[in-house]
């Protein structure tokens, strides 16, 4: 993927000096249509025969990204010429019809850095549509995998440990499980408080007059306090389901950036429907005691009956769990203990 990034950068540098007229553009009729093309190339979002997005797309990154088995993700967004996304006071961009959010997943040391899959989130007149594509062996195009698939991959995590996993490409329904708000599909990542805007983002986003405070980077102590970085991590990795209108609404555990750290944030919250996900513990978060906080237990498990998040993870995010452990360990223990 590093090579891909370099190529992308080169493409951008070239584009900045050249006339945009000669640049290829995505096929807006396919984007706006009602079909689910069998091949990713049908959308014309990538340079022919490659996994490099056209320079007409805006690459972007996030302060705190969702953990996905240590995959490197390359994100880009496309909006039809003449349109852009006004960012609301709540920081949520109002993406126009015709928007495509593109996210490619891969590892620098797997298959020569080629991506394994690319997910599209397309804003059509009828609403958002989520489509998963798996790259063909030759890396020239990707094929629709509407029912998802498991793909064996091997890579090293940042600590040098080698992982061989059956990486799960989500199916169309699973895309919606995470991208669901009141039963409708919505984008999760690109919110103003988590987007790193590049210099050329003004073509795509228009900003409100008020400044929107950014979320910290979960792994950069200079960007925020321990608690705020833990909250950013939980907001990005958990709150797409753990909110009152998400897939985990019935749990009563709500982990949005805007939620206060109380019982509904897990503090001394008893398990609701956790089953053996509780690991024999009384509370999701036991202040001062990460070893008896089943939120940690679930993040560090790979058993499908225990692991959280339920989707998109076949490895443990050691570094993320360590951050949350430290946060819980440093919480004062002096809250009232239950008399059982």
């Amino acid at each position, binding site marked *: 993927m590093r090579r891909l990034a370099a190529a992308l950068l080169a493409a951008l540098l070239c584009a900045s000096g050249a006339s945009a007229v000669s640049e290829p553009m995505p096929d807006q009729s396919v984007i706006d249509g009602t079909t689910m093309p069998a091949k990713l190339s049908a959308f014309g979002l990538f340079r022919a025969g490659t996994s490099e997005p056209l320079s007409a797309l805006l690459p972007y990154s996030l302060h705190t990204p969702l953990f996905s088995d240590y995959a490197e993700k390359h994100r880009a967004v496309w909006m039809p010429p003449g349109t852009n996304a006004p960012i609301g006071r709540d920081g949520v961009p109002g993406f126009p019809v015709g928007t495509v959010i593109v996210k490619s997943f891969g590892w620098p040391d797997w298959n020569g850095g080629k991506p394994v899959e690319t997910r599209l989130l397309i804003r059509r007149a009828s609403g958002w549509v989520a489509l998963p594509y798996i790259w063909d062996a030759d890396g020239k195009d990707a094929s629709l995998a*509407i029912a998802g698939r498991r793909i064996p991959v091997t890579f090293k995590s940042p600590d040098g440990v080698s992982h061989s996993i*059956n990486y799960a490409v989500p199916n169309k329904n699973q895309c919606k499980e995470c991208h669901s708000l009141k039963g409708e599909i919505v984008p999760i990542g690109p919110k103003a408080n988590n987007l790193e805007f590049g210099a050329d983002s003004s073509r795509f986003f228009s900003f409100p007059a008020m400044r929107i405070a950014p979320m910290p980077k979960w792994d950069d102590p200079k960007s925020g306090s321990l608690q705020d970085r833990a909250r950013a991590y939980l907001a990005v990795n958990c709150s797409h389901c753990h909110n009152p209108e998400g897939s985990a609404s019935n749990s009563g555990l709500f982990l949005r950036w805007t939620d206060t750290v109380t019982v509904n944030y897990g503090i001394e919250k008893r398990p609701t429907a956790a089953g*053996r996900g509780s690991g024999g513990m009384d509370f999701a978060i036991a202040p001062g005691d990460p070893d008896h906080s089943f939120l940690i237990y679930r993040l560090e498990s790979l058993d499908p009956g225990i692991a959280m998040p339920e989707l998109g993870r076949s490895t443990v995010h050691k570094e993320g769990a360590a951050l949350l452990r430290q946060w819980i360990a440093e919480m004062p223990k002096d809250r009232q203990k239950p*008399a059982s």
Partner: protein
Amino acid sequence: MRFHSLRHAATLCILAACAAHPAAAKTISVSAGTPDANEKLQEALILAEPGDTVELGAGTWKLTDGLSLDVANVTVRGAGTDEKGSILDFSGQQGAGEGLLVTSDDVLLTGFAVINTKGDGIKSKGADRIVYHKLRVEWTAGPKATNGAYGVYPVESTDVLIDSVFVRGASDAGIYVGQSKNIVVRDSIAQENVAGIEIENSFDADVHDNIATRNTGGILVFDLPSLPQQGGHNVRVFSNEIRDNSTPNFAPKGNIVASVPTGTGVLVMANRNVEVFDNVMESNGTANVMIVGYRYPYEDAKYQPLPRAIVVRDNEHGKAGYAPAFEGGDQIAAALGGSLPPVLWDGAGDAVVLDKVGVLSLGLPDVKTPRSEAKPQPADLSKATLPAALPEIRLPASMEAKVK
């Protein structure tokens, strides 16, 4: 019709009964023997359109990932729940929190088995008018703490029918209905689960003509704090057989059902307007009926921890209370000549018991008083004013038609 992708699904066999009409419902048949059975079945569940039936062939499906359905008005129909039927075997499951997840309305699930899921068996969330019919959800090695939590698990739904379902081995509740409204659970068997049948944080439910046996607790009606829907009320538990709920509690500690004493028939906690009548209850070593408050600390100003307007009448009681499995129970039993009466009340809230059996009150006037201050004494709850009788639950005719 948007079915280009089906060309790639060579093993999917489309039987369009009436091709002349574009909206004609069709049957998508999927076979257990397909090499990519998991992917093909999931593909069928995604490509189905409202009105369609996804037909599961007979045989054992070896599945590695959870399945999901998000299309309204689809029927998933198998060839039966026994060995010759359609068995979705999740013994090798690698991902997802349940075997099958339904998130769309007006779905009928019928005639198949789901076994050995790592998490829950079949979950439906926000799926109104769902019908679970002639299903088996089972952890085939019997009660084990490593089994999944819930067998059949509808949550946040309006109009739920569970009819002729068999559930065994759930480490929480075999049949669990949570945060829902207008519910019927009938003609089902819950065996060797921690809780056989549990109605939690729900409104308007009829639980009748079921068999709850060899669970830790037979039928539970609960309300818990800090959840989006609470204030459980209007639940009728009637004409059930609730026998021999004697399996030692195997729920992971911390879960609320881990506190259910072995040998509990019916347990009502922190609900209002619950009627328990015309049941046959016997061989429940702690009690045939327990009525209690929620006795844990909570931070939820809206929560009501007491049982209120509970009615127990016209039940047939066999032996009970001979092996009370709560702390101090054996001393109380010894003081009472060896066993407890069949009905146990913790002393907080209000209940009417018209059955001609003994009632033991623990004499705890509120949920704050610790159990150590219990003053066990016989109670006569037959004189209290009877609350107005609850009406029968009626489901939409479209749901009843599906199980005719």
